[in-house]
């Protein structure tokens, strides 16, 4: 690596370990001033860790960091910020009860005692200058994601950022707002800011970045690669490694069409719900899923997908309408009764809603059966452990014993435990909510195969994902939710432009 004044950032032999796991291993990178650099890799490749090391949030166990040729201590946010390094997090780090003005103020370096109006006026001026369309007295918790992101970027810029890191900035954005973000990033580059984008969608990388850095399994694969000399194919081969890429070469094809059976697995008629804790209320939703059909749900997060799942699970109040499972009216039934009639749910948040991480595997696995029995029935833990063991083996889960805590499994294995619990032979309707989020390519492939197999066995499947590519690959039909309403229904071949437009209609 050539030392040069042209580099705004250099690091040598950075290693970060959490316990015995190396999140980063001997990574040495240099970034040139005034360019847009992308950092890519699979989940678990160490991208976010890298971003946090640069921003001073994580202290590397070994290695040296230079910003503007000045050596950093590492693990010192204040020093990094003083040198002009700012990080915008994937899940935004803004306290929800704060107003925008307060959120700007608490990390700023000026002012002692302020008046509320003065503070709001002061920050409003700055926000307006940066073209952020937000009122500074609005509360953080009331803002949509793209505004939150804009506020975080604005905050970074106000503290005179010379070196801006955006961690997965497009993960929460619609195609439309992604373009806007990229426009803004290019403007920043014009004004002399160096930018690192941590991304995982390769098309986006090639669209925006000048150079790309590839990480795999915590190690540096290559850096920097000029984006002019590389295409998606080569890049993805570097990301997953040569061997793995060959194995997966054929599995991502679009789903083969199967005969969809005449019986319906789910029939929702004119369903309206009250507003849910976290998501839009549903209004007049009509939806049918046939046995043996995968229906994909598209939409920007928070537009009613979650409410739909919670309504089917009897977790949100229904104002009007009816829900039928296998031609049986379930509207008045409890979640447990619905489950005993074949409803299965793979919930959104694997680690919160799907598993209890600090409980043993066999308890996590047995709970579905236990809940179908009276509250004080005797159990035989030995036999249940054995049953759990057989089943997890069948599903190819890697674990050492069933008394192991669920939290000790990797994301992919944890998801397999949920699959093995929810995809038994009696399942008739499977709700799969973001089942591949955060999984690597191998595990994602496993989930897809399992869902397809269940479909072929006659299950109806409702598949919710924020990744449109995935949705198109696996669904027999795609529906789009916007503000709690079903606003579009699409058959293959899917047209990303039309579906994308349906997702953001209200914004146009």
């Amino acid at each position: 690596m050539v030392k040069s004044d042209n580099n705004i950032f250099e690091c040598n032999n950075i290693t970060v370990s959490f316990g015995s796991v190396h999140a980063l291993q001997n990574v040495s990178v240099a970034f040139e001033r005034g360019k847009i650099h992308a950092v890519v890799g699979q989940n678990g490749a160490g991208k976010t860790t890298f971003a946090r090391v640069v921003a001073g949030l994580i202290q590397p166990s070994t290695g040296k960091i230079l910003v503007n040729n000045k050596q950093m201590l590492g693990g010192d946010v204040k020093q990094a910020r003083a040198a002009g390094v700012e990080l915008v997090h994937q899940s935004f780090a803004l306290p929800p009860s704060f107003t925008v003005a307060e959120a700007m103020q608490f990390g700023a370096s000026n002012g002692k005692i302020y008046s509320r109006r003065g503070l709001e006026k002061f920050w409003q001026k700055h926000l307006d200058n940066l073209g952020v369309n937000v009122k500074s007295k609005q509360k953080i918790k009331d803002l949509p994601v793209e505004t939150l992101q804009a506020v975080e970027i604005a905050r970074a810029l106000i503290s005179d950022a010379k070196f801006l890191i955006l961690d997965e900035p497009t993960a929460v954005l619609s195609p439309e707002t992604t373009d806007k973000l990229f426009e803004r990033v290019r403007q920043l580059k014009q004004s002399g800011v160096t930018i690192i984008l941590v991304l995982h969608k390769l098309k986006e990388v090639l669209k925006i970045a000048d150079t790309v850095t590839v990480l795999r399994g915590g190690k540096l694969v290559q850096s920097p690669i000029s984006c002019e000399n590389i295409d998606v194919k080569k890049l993805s081969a570097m990301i997953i490694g040569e061997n793995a890429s060959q194995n997966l070469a054929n599995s991502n094809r679009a789903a083969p069409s199967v005969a969809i059976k005449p019986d319906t697995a789910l029939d929702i008629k004119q369903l309206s719900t009250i507003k849910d804790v976290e998501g839009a209320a549903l209004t007049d939703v009509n939806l049918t899923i046939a046995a043996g059909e995968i229906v994909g749900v598209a939409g920007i997060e928070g537009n009613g997908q979650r409410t739909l799942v919670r309504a089917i699970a009897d977790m949100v109040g229904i104002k009007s309408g009816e829900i039928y499972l296998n031609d049986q009216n379930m509207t008045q039934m409890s979640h447990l009764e619905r489950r005993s009639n074949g409803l299965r749910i793979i919930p959104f948040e694997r680690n919160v809603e799907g598993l209890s991480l600090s409980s043993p595997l066999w308890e996590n696995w047995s709970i579905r059966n236990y809940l179908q029995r009276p509250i004080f029935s005797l159990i035989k833990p030995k036999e249940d452990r054995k049953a759990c063991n057989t089943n997890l083996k069948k599903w190819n889960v890697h674990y050492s014993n069933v008394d192991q805590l669920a939290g000790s499994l990797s994301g992919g294995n944890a998801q397999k435990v949920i699959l093995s619990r929810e995809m038994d032979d009696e399942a008739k309707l499977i709700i799969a909510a973001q089942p591949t989020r955060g999984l690597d390519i191998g595990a994602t492939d496993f989930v897809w195969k399992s869902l397809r197999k269940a479909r072929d066995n006659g299950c109806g499947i409702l598949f919710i994902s924020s990744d449109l590519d995935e949705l198109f690959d696996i669904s027999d039909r795609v529906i789009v939710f916007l503000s709690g309403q079903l606003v579009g229904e699409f058959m293959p071949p899917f047209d990303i432009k039309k579906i994308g437009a349906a997702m953001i209609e209200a914004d146009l």
Partner: protein
Amino acid sequence: MNMQFITIFRALLFILLALALCSVIFVIAGFSAVELFESIIDGAFLRNGAMKHALRWAAPLFITSIGVIISFRAGYFNIGAQGQFYIGAIFAAFTAEWLNGAPAFVVIPACFIAGATGGALWALWPGLLRLKSGADEVITTLMGNFLASLILIYVTGGPLKDPSGSGQQASSRPLDEAYRLGNSYELSPTIIMIALSLGLFMWVIANRTTFGVVSGLAGRNATMVEWQGTKLLRVGLASFLISGGLAGIAGTVELMGPNGRLAAGFLPAHGFTAILIALVANLSIAGAAIAALFFGGLASAALYIPVMSGLPASAIEIINAAIALFITAKSKFLDKLFSLGRAKWKK
């Protein structure tokens, strides 16, 4: 290395740390820490018949602590054991008063049922407030403790007042000898049997029923259990009721055994000590039996040391408090020590 061993070692380490803090306090207050500890150990475990005394105190503490374990496992911080203990005792006392003259085999079971009901009722309302409205149970059960002690003062000074009692401390009329399960001088085998069989029964409930597993899962991750289709109300209420009921039974045991009557403000540290036992035992019922013996010993030492060595009984209170301060602590140092030890072992 064995997980259980680490757990026990950790508990012991933090108890030692707590005792070190206590020594500092004792020395600042002008007592000799060595002398104090010596006399506490002597009072608790070494003197003649110490084991008997420790058992006498341990049995009711054990019963209450099982209840605490059940509610803590289910994820509810029911720290109202003291209040539930009092209300249970009050219900039992009223029942004994009301049935006075009936044969013992009627009165004693009736008192136990009443005691359990009283304790359960005193846990029911915080449970409902928590599960129906989300009102934090830490504060409601705490306030319940204060209310219960006021009710106890009222009852012992009013409806159940012993007219012949001295003015010092209001108390109820003493129970008929026929209804007593033991007296204050000797250890009652009946009470030990009651404690052990309750322990066994609750062990089965906690480890061999769907309730045990489901409430345990709910305690660690309630959201996950909700997504599995159960409303937490039933499991949650059951935990509150069991927890309160057991404290109520402990109150009944104290009333019908060693105490023989209700007195205003009797055993004010019972609930807190039971919580400590549950925590020191790492929420295991078998562990609680052993921990109860330790704290039972301390409780008997609290009576012994002011009389025998003229040292203040509040020393015991301080030891308990210091243990509470440290018992839930986690130690990075300890984790490192063990992982290092394991690594060396492998080599």
